[in-house]
């Protein structure tokens, strides 16, 4: 019974004399493999070299700050709602007087966690955010020894302060800087 239309008739011709001797065909095969000896190697020596990603690569998230170094996130929870993998949790807190230099608006995220084992790097959180507070960068979450290490806290996610560490800020922003 034919199940698909893709079945191909296999050739079952007896081998010719040249094929029976094997040597000629083996020599041809060896010529192919020896050519690969001189080809460029496909390996990337990972910790020393990293592969470059495209501009639209969706890597690990960062929590953005504004130009004065204040956190943009207001803990509205839209990213958590948008997240199809349910990887994001947060706790909101009210900004106290004297904390105006830390948080941009009256409400901020006291706790913000992304579980990188759940995250599917779809970028919906970035789309959902009304405050430009969360972005997907061009780096990926590095390997870790324990599951707990994959739950990224707010400290792991926050971008460096542009006033204290402008270089780190630009680096973390990467190619997104033109977009922000």
């Amino acid at each position: 019974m034919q199940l698909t239309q893709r079945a191909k008739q296999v050739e079952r011709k007896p081998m010719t004399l040249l094929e029976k001797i094997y040597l000629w065909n083996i020599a041809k095969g060896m010529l192919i493999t020896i050519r690969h000896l001189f080809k460029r190697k496909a390996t990337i020596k990972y910790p020393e070299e990293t592969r470059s990603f495209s501009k639209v690569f969706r890597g690990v998230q960062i929590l953005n700050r504004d130009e004065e170094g204040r956190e943009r996130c207001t803990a509205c929870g839209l990213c958590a709602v948008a997240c199809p993998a349910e990887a994001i949790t947060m706790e909101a807190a009210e900004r106290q007087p004297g904390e105006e230099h830390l948080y941009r608006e009256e409400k901020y995220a006291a706790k913000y966690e992304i579980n990188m084992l759940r995250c599917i790097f779809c970028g919906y959180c970035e789309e959902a955010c009304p405050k430009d507070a969360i972005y997907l960068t061009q780096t990926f979450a590095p390997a870790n020894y324990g599951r707990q290490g994959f739950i990224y806290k707010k400290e792991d996610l926050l971008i460096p302060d542009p006033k204290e560490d402008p270089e780190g800020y630009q680096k973390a922003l990467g190619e997104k800087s033109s977009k922000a």
Partner: protein
Amino acid sequence: MYLLAIDWFFILEKFLLIGLIVTLSMVVAMYATYGERKVAAWLQDRIGPNRAGPFGILQPLADGGKLFFKEEIIPLISSKFLFILGPCLAMITALLTSAVIPWSTPLHLFDKDIPLQVADINIGILYIFGVVSLGVYGIMIGGWASNNKFSLLAAVRGASQMVSYELPMGLALIAVLMLAGDLRMSVIVNNQIEHYWHIVYQPIGFIIFFVCALAECNRTPFDLPEAENELNFGYHQEYSSMKLGFYLFAEYINMFISGVVMSTLYFGGYDIPFVNEANWDINQNLLAIIGFAVLLAKAFFFVFVFMWIRWTIPRFRYDQLMKLGWRTLIPLALLNMVLTAAIVLWFKK
């Protein structure tokens, strides 16, 4: 010198030479594992081991260390004595072969000529054959003592394969012996230095010998005794720790030695190609070292070809293997032998 006097210098010299050659074989085998992984990687567009030391050259040490620290498991129902004897035999026979190989021209030290050959016995090549045939016992005993059907199957395969391929190998060799007129390894090499290399007279003989050497070393395309995908590593499946290491090491030593034997029999041994080094006006010791390096280079080339073949072609089916051995190589070797004999007779007349 009177009868029964012990020449201590002679004993010391031979002991040193044996130690040197055994060490050399071991080191070469160690780095052959590294070389194999590198060659495999290069042929597959990869880099290969590169983490342990610069370019990964400490990788064999790390592997060896790992093997030493692994747990030794001896199956309960297996014969313990035979189980341990297997890898020992494989290793011993692999190392014994190097005894009759002339490594280079004699060194001149302490007003004495020191031949760089452990024993220049008058049945040199026969000795090699005898020891290589013993090598099959390592596989057979190991496979039998494992008390595992895969190991046993592999051992049976290995034994019949080795027996089958020794025949054409021997027949191919007879042609070389007719050219050289002696079984002595040193005479075979000198004959090539005086005339042309034997490969010029014996191209078919060399191809037969090479194919059989692949089969004797259990290398692809004849690696049926350790066919990973059908026999779970074959005869050394039950082995762990350094006993497994011995089997793997013995294989690489065999590879190196067969490379050396091929260069000695067909490619002029320590003869430097295209020049007549006898006319050079340089130190005898220097010449010996150059000759030794040349022999090593030839042997390494063959080892590389072995690896190159391994990472190019798949394994033969068992019936194909037997058919190739009995119905192609043996008749071809016989024909080659008869033709050579006729030609030698014709020119001697």
